[in-house]
């Protein structure tokens, strides 16, 4: 079936990088190729800041997942004897206004806060990516429609949208996530579209058309993988924003419902006891900072690691 005639030895030699004429070079066989993921991983871990980010993110996620084992107390168990007591051996991070152990709430709060960040961003990406892809690649009337809709959504102030959505869906963490996610969607549509348009202008897309790829395959197989890094970076930035947004919605009573903890709502309550019980604010504040920092470091690292020009 193969149409290839017997290749010339010289031509073969050219490809292997072996000198055809002398046998002098050490005949190094090509090293075992690292798979794409392995290569990506090597690039990622080659950066110290990315490792720091990754370690913190993983630690936070583990903390959220294994909160039941890590937290010294039930985060919603109240201790009437210890209302707003300052940090001591029994409660290393102190207790809050109804006698919850702050440390346990920080540990469990990671679920809500990281969850808010990750879920809302996942939603925004899940919605924004396909629409952005369609708008950017199909163009024409579809693009026009999607972009007008996106513009309209962007033009509505985020908080109004979020408040209205949260109020409509009923205040709960899940719904706050949905609201934050929906509000962030238009940014992703825009970003995806811009990225798609940039990638679609690349020559390899033309090359893909030249071998007869149908449009849907170009969009999914050729464009999509190339816009993922930009989306990922934006996503990690948005996670940070979403954690803060959850805090803001908590401020308005639309976030995590009491007594379940989230860092944002803890911070929100803590502001009423700023001088009496500063520890109520310090820990959730530090946790948010740590998470934001970690996600951003990781995001920067991912961007670099996904850049094919970066060598391992």
């Amino acid at each position: 079936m193969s149409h290839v005639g017997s290749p010339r030895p010289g031509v073969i030699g050219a490809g292997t990088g072996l000198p055809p004429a002398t046998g002098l070079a050490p005949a190094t066989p090509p090293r075992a190729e690292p798979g794409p993921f392995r290569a990506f991983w090597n690039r990622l871990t080659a950066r110290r800041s990315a490792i720091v980010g990754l370690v913190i993110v993983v630690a936070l996620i583990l903390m959220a997942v294994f909160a039941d084992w890590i937290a010294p107390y039930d985060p919603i168990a109240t201790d009437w004897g210890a209302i707003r007591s300052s940090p001591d051996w029994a409660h290393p991070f102190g207790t809050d206004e109804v006698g919850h152990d702050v440390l346990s709430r920080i540990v469990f709060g990671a679920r809500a806060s990281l969850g808010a960040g990750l879920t809302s961003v996942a939603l925004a990406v899940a919605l924004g990516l396909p629409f952005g892809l369609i708008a950017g690649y199909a163009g024409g009337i579809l693009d026009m429609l999607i972009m007008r809709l996106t513009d309209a959504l962007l033009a509505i102030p985020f908080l109004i949208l979020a408040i209205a959505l949260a109020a409509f869906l009923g205040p709960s963490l899940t719904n706050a996530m949905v609201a934050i996610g929906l509000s962030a969607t238009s940014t992703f549509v825009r970003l995806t579209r811009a990225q798609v348009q940039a990638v679609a202008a690349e020559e390899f897309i033309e090359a893909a058309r030249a071998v007869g790829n149908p449009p849907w395959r170009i969009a999914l197989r050729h464009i999509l993988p190339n816009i993922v890094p930009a989306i990922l970076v934006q996503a990690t930035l948005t996670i940070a924003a979403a954690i803060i947004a959850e805090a803001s919605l908590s401020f308005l009573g639309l976030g995590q419902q009491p007594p379940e903890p989230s860092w944002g709502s803890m911070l929100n309550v803590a502001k009423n006891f700023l001088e009496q019980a500063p520890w109520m604010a310090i820990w959730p504040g530090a946790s948010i900072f740590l998470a934001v920092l970690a996600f951003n470091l990781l995001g920067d690292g991912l961007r670099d690691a996904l850049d094919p020009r970066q060598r391992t």
Partner: protein
Amino acid sequence: RAQTAQAQTLRFGLMEDPDALDPTLARTFTSRMVFAAMCDKLVDIGPDLKPVPQLATSWSLSEDEKTLTMTLRPGVLFHDGEKLDAAAAKYSIERHLKLPGSQRRGEIAPIDRVEVVDDLTFKIVLKTPFAPLMAQFTDRAGMMVSPKAAERLGDKFSTAPVCAGPFKFVERVPQDRIVLERFDDYWNKDAIHLKRIEFRPIPDGTVRLTNLRAGQLDLLERLTPTDLPQVTRDPKLKVGSTIELGFQSIVFNPNKAGSAVADPRVRAAFDLAIDRNALNQVVFSGEFLPGNQWVSPKHPAYVKEYPIGKRDVAKAKALLAEAGVTKPVINLTVYANNEAPQVGQVIQAMTREAGFDVKLQATDFTTALDAADKGTFEAYLYSWSGRPDPDGNTFSFLACKTPLNYARYCDPEADAALGAERATVDPNQRAQAWKRLADRVMADRPLIYLFHRKLFWAYTTKLTGFTPYPDGLVRFNGLKLN
């Protein structure tokens, strides 16, 4: 000179932005703060909750309790220079009754007509005897507006309200400030020392307090009890307080399909599971007054036969077992403000020990109201600002098909008691009626009453002459800034 003028401006931090500054249309508690400075009432409320003369100097009730004759203070002027006479009083009361959208109509609905007797005397004729009437006149229903201004402005009266109080309206920037200025022809002008009042709505309690501490305010209302230590520690600040007329309660909705709270035994168990003192301690540093009725235990109308019960978890469990429910899940709606969720959390923790599983639902005010109206809630942490007459704390909540009866409570015996309470001003007869009402309500528990707030004001030591009143309003007479 500018210094002293500045010094005599009282900056008063309010908890929310008042609504329409029209005594007929106003509906928020906060608006009453402003009216207290701007609009005098026919009668004021005394420290013992009895009416005392203000615009009306004397009054008498006919034998059948259906005609009230009032005599006005002579020489009182509205801010626009108009005279306050019987005709003006008649106009104001009729306006309360007839203006479309009037919020006062319900308060004085039994009034049939108002008749002018002479220049300063008028008669109010009732359809039926109505005991709370005088109490209503101590509030917005008793506020007199200038007929000329009211005619001219119609339902836009609130843009430039004209009353007969110590301070007259200057300007209002929504959500920023309301400015009043001393009315130089005020009938009691010697008691007024302040030159201007600036009301500044600052919803967040912490922010309100920091503003006071930073010298941006001279006086603020509704200080959070947990902030008390901060204020008492500060030598530049003082605190005033009084127990409110209203109540904090949990309203149950027995009509909610499939809800455990339909069974009175479950409601009783819930009640028994709550330790009101502990609740008070935890959330309010013990400053509030635990309660179990529509008025506080210190109120003259408190039904002494029903004192506050002790927490009894065992009995609560037994009741639940009797009702045949295990671990009932109860959704408790609370406002998403600073303290309601805290109260909810404590209740949640307390009732858990008795086997309840309370789920908190913190929502905004409008959503909560909507759920209450539509009957989609299950339990609702509800607060009522209170009225001078106990009728204002009961009738609309417990009588059949009344607007605030979120519990959909409808009991013939209770209705009869409420009818009796309204029908006479005689203290003994009314006390009996309250007892009859309590017999039913304490058993049925459509609401369980939790506590009565203490209202705190914080103010600079520069402010003198401040006296707390039980209706939670500030009397500006005698206030002085040094």
